[in-house]
């Protein structure tokens, strides 16, 4: 896993719940089925109110031009649906940088290995706007926004970093010998 993520940011505000990340009527899609995984990506953040003028995944596209999501407080609150981090990952997002996360969403990011959930003490959603270019350095725990000439510190992910680097809980458990690779396991 590369330690730098470069790309456009998509900015949302406080308390973005899992219904806004992936509306409940799309939960019939089963993430372990590849076509349905891709479909989940095309609906990522489609539950945001119409006050958000940009769409995270543009009309008619299946993936997002934004690689980094910037949020306020309590991102991912609400349901335990793993479809939430999966839809963001399937759309092509690599990280969410937020003031704080809801617990189950944070845990699901790590378990699925879909994206890096990064805490920041700064209220970035007031500073940044959708479409800005940014560079996320996972080793230095820094987000740089060259257009503003600013750099923001992020809280280190600790042990969770490696789990996501490995591709989620199961891949990590096998790599570290916590569980055996089963005979017919196809990675």
């Amino acid at each position, binding site marked *: 896993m590369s330690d730098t993520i470069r790309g456009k940011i998509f900015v949302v505000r406080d308390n973005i719940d899992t219904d806004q990340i992936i509306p*409940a009527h799309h939960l*019939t*899609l089963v993430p372990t089925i590849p076509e349905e995984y891709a479909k989940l990506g095309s609906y990522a953040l489609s539950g945001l109110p119409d006050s958000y003028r940009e769409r995270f995944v543009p009309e008619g596209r299946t993936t997002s031009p934004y690689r980094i999501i910037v949020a306020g407080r309590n991102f991912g609150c609400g349901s335990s*649906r*793993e*479809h939430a981090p999966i839809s963001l990952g399937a759309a092509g997002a690599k990280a969410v940088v937020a003031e704080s996360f809801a*617990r189950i969403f944070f845990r699901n990011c790590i*378990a699925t290995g879909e994206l890096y959930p990064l805490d920041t003490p700064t209220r970035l959603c007031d500073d940044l706007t959708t479409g800005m270019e940014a560079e996320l350095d996972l080793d230095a725990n820094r987000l740089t926004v060259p257009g503003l000439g600013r750099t923001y510190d992020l809280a280190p992910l600790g042990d969770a970093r490696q789990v996501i680097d490995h591709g989620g809980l199961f891949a990590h458990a096998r790599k570290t010998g916590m*569980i055996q690779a089963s005979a017919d396991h196809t990675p």
Partner: protein
Amino acid sequence: MSMTLTEKILARASGRPSVKAGDNVWVQADILMTHDVCGPGTIGIFQHEFGRDAKVFDPARVVLTPDHYIFTADAKCLRNIDVCREFARAQKLPHFYDPADETYSGVCHLTLPQKGHCRPGEVMFGTDSHTCTHGAFGLFATGIGNTDAAFILGTGKLLIKIPASMKFVLDGRLPPGVMAKDIILRIIGDIGVDGATYRAMEFTGDGIPCLTMEDRMTICNMAIEAGAKNGIIAADAVTEAYVRQRTAQPYTVFASDPGASYLSVHRYDLAKLVPVVALPHSPDNVKPAAACGDCRLDRAYIGSCTGGKISDFTAAARLLDGRRVAIETCLVPATVEVARQLETETVHGQSLLDIFRAAGCLPPAPPSCAACLGGPADTFGRLNGAEVCISTTNRNFPGRMGSKRSSVILASPCTVAASAITGRITDPREMIA
């Protein structure tokens, strides 16, 4: 070392003499619950990771309760129920509540207690955020994602961090017209939707013995709406009476030690609480119902794991008895048992069903989650446009009950019933002589 109730249960489950907040420990799961929305994904990961022929850690500890998208023509929903059924058959799961036959029960969070799966002192994981409901029985219960659930299916274990506890002391008795739902909405209004993130919310105080098991479930159900990992109430005689009626299995009753440490202590005098509502679009946007009278409503909804229990319908029926609703009023019993009780339970000698019929409510829908989380287009009670709905459910984020343009107001069954009668948000105490 002094421990909280949550710490004591997790110490037992991790095989250690003691644990403290912040420790990361492997715990043994006593129950893993999943349903039709997260079950197929969990099963998919389990089979991919452990192999097609792998067996679950213990079939008797897996509870499979299709409940979310049941009464629909949507092909994917029906396929997902089939996936659950096929898995239950292949794994010989004794606790599969099949929508296709008489074993069907309804919403998982009322099915688990009613079928005897909630036992004090145990550890329960569920692929549903409202799994925290079951802390009402003095057990540790929390919601997890599919990957974690698949890991448990294969190993019976999960690595978790011991949460620090916040103590909520509930003293005194609720006045007429004020319900358990008002207690938890008030608390969420006070601490905010992230006020207990990563924490255990422990409810204690001399008001607890007066609360029924259903009241306690309502309170613990919404711990997640404050971001908590679990809600918990120590088991007492009320708990044991309920549990003993439903299961013969042994269990252990734990209580917090006197010197246990809490992150914070919050006190409530139940006698001083008033009926409240959570206005759109957040469960912490809490106002007294009496202060919201100009808000006009299009629909009232009584149902879900939070507000679709028999005590919820009985409270609503008391207000609706001899009155008429002014707006469309949807009733969704949480389980088959509740649906039956609508016919057998009475208020002033009349069955609840007769009272609802005479009041002009829509006929009750079959038990399921129904419109609590929107659901497919043909879901009963779904908000398909810019309607305003007052509801006994637990979430009102944008689009929760269907359309992004709709608005949901959360309230107790008494407040929903009173508001259905007037067509605007109404403090039920106005109607209680």
